[in-house]
């Protein structure tokens, strides 16, 4: 048991900002608490009842006071709102160069996968100083990915992807908690985040088992599931080419456009006929139940690896 501290360690770029806002709020709160407690205590003593029959003169009007104690707190709260919103907004938008890690929550464990194919359970190793983006989903109920030292938390919801990001600033070992109640062993759905020096991280990545990078696993799955029978890279198949599809805007049959993000790709694998690309027939079978959430993530990563803009006549596409 360490020394008693009132704030957790500051181990991400967000942490100091959140704590500063906390100190501001604490200062405001202490001021008003002292003001109210002090006033009550002083009035209670100063104006205590001295005779059972006394009757005080009530003051007549307090309009100025009413306006003052409406406007001043309101101004203060607007500062709190703006400050908090600014932090929240930056927490919501991961930088483009962030290192991607995929997270699948299930009762009651965290499964994490690095781009390079390294998988972990209830442990996350990351290098210090690099922004890390987590794309997360759940296999069953709602969980929540919470690292107090980073001051970040985001729910992990079944049926969709959610994203959180942070940039660790300090090497060390930090708590990872599930913060959304998820059933019997909710309090055991915990783990550790290891923030390492870049070199140590590289070593760690190389060590131990590795089944190839995430994209490679995805490529293999792409073959195993026979996706490549229809999705030819040169658009000659019955289905659209997937080269460069990620991040592009896809025209749908029946009008409408959609941005091909992770959520769209996931939906197109699990419920292929939900949104049909213009000019194609709904012939793809559903892969719901045939491929796990992790498998979907690998496929998504593989499709992302096929480039983000339409490539010249395909060469290295799947065959």
């Amino acid at each position: 048991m360490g020394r008693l501290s009132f704030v957790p360690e500051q181990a991400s770029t967000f942490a100091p900002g959140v704590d500063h806002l906390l100190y501001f709020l604490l200062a405001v709160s202490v001021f008003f608490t002292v003001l109210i407690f002090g006033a009550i205590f002083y009035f209670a003593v100063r104006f205590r009842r001295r005779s059972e029959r006394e009757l005080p003169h009530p003051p007549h009007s307090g309009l100025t006071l009413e306006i003052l104690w409406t406007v001043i707190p309101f101004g203060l709260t607007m500062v709190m709102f703006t400050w908090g919103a600014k932090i929240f907004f930056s927490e919501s938008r991961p930088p483009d160069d962030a290192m991607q890690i995929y997270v699948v929550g299930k009762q009651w464990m965290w499964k994490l996968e690095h781009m390079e194919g390294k998988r972990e359970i209830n442990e996350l190793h990351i290098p210090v100083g690099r922004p890390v983006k987590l794309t997360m989903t759940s296999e069953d109920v709602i969980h929540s990915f919470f690292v107090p030292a980073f001051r970040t938390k985001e729910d992990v919801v079944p049926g969709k992807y959610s994203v959180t990001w942070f940039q660790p600033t300090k090497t060390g070992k930090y708590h990872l908690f599930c913060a959304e109640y998820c059933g019997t062993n909710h309090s055991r759905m915990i783990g550790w985040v290891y923030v390492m020096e870049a070199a140590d991280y590289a070593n760690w990545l190389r060590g131990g088992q590795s089944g190839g990078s995430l994209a490679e696993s995805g490529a293999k799955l792409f073959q195993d599931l026979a996706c490549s029978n229809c999705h030819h890279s040169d658009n000659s198949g019955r289905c659209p080419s997937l080269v460069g599809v990620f991040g592009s805007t896809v025209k749908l049959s029946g009008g409408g456009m959609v941005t091909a993000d992770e959520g769209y790709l996931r939906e197109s694998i699990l419920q292929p006929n939900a949104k049909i690309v213009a000019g194609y027939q709904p012939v793809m079978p559903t892969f719901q139940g045939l491929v796990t959430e992790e498998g979907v993530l690998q496929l998504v990563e593989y499709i992302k690896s096929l480039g983000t803009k339409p490539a010249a006549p395909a060469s290295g596409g799947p065959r």
Partner: protein
Amino acid sequence: MITAAEQEREHYLNESYGIKSWLLTKDHKRIALLYLATVTLFFFIGGAFATMIRIELLTPQGGLVSSETYNKLFTMHGITMIFFFLIPSIPATLGNFFLPMMIGARDLAFPRVNLLSWYLLVIGGLFALFAMLAGGVDTGWTFYTPYSTTYSNTWVIATAIGIFIAGFSSILTGLNFIVTVHRMRAPGMTWFRLPLFVWSNYATALIQVLGTPVLAVTIVLVFCERFFHIGIFDPALGGDPVLFQHLFWFYSHPAVYIMVLPAMGVISELVSVFSRKTVFGYKFVAFSSMAIAVLGFLVWGHHLFVSTQSVYAGLVFSFLSYFVAIPSAIKVFNWTATLYKGSISYATPMLYTFGFIGLFTIGGLTGLFVASLGIDVHVTDTYFVIAHFHYIMVGGTIMAYLGGLHYWWPKMTGRMYPELWARLSALVIFLGFNLTFFPQFILGYLGMPRRYHTYSSEFQVLHVLSTAGASVLAVGYLMPMIYFIWSLRYGKLAPANPWGASGLEWKTPSPPPLHNFDETPIVTQEAYDYRGVIGEEVEVG
């Protein structure tokens, strides 16, 4: 002085006897006492769960009960305390008893509906008790889907039915209050002569009527999803669990104001009577109750900041949440200003009032922390939130409830409670409460998630402090229970107006006659006008 003859006059307690005269009564005062007995029972059931939770959390490994049991304990603690104690507590007991009297009415507008709503609470409570005895429920009081609809193997359906039925009890109480305030006021009792307790109960009733049905339909959908396997929130079908959260919090956030608005009304009464001054800024306090009732409906999304709700919705809900802080602040400032140049008595109800203002201030200010997006992302679903809402609901509502109970006890029962013991209990509760819940703010900011059966050992010191506080708090709550019962037989006989209060409820004997007033009162004064109430006046100030 009270003569023996006066005590033998007929009043609502002795006008008829027997179990039937209670179970079939249409008298709002008797129904209030039925409610009092019911919610007290549920308070101690919920308290027993809390006790077990606190004992369990003494050690990080969680040796006392299994995880399944622990999860059921906090779920049933929440459900019992919120739906069967806090929501009916002040409106259905003190409100039921005194709202008609304060406006000079013989009864509520619909006495039979009033009795029906008590029965609904009891029936709902029996369903919930059945679920608890049969094996309990482990979804958390929030019933988040898909855990509650698909994954939990506990008694969700019975509990849901219980809450559904209790919800209608709450709706009918609210409906009755609204109609009563509109249609049953005595001659001369204009809106701005209404005691603030009436205003705040009126505002509460609006929330009950407008919010509770949404909870009801949400529970129906959870019930259908579990029982008939239809899917509204089921992600496997393409449903959205976050939609459940919207529907749930549309009621459950305003429900916080159902719990605390009546408490604010009690405090407005007490702070005036025990400083013998009209409430400072009467209209501001009255309108702030209405403002809280309205604005309280615009902020529910602040429970969803990390739920995958859209960023923009998060911004709007955070922004709106700060608006609801303002009327609460106005109330605190006005209560404090009421004390200025008053004639302040240290009677027990006033001690509870001091306690309320202090604890509510802390609870309200920490509300600013959780309304702030940047901080809420870190502290939501941690003990910080637990501490915050216990400061509001326990530090706020229960303090006010006990304060009001002491204040009106002489009117309700015709007996005085023992003053010395009562003051002691107020002190014990205040200290015990702070010791229990203040450490939880720190726990939460340090990152201790809520609903954890086992926890990391660095949190133990604060948990031990909290449990120590809880044992003090438990003693504090048992004391009034004992001396109130004692006072029913041995307490001093109460005069009609022991506090020198000015409300209409004090202008009739203690306990009141069956129809409250021997003749319909005609109101000619503003509320809280103490001239003419105090025997020989000595003006000060």
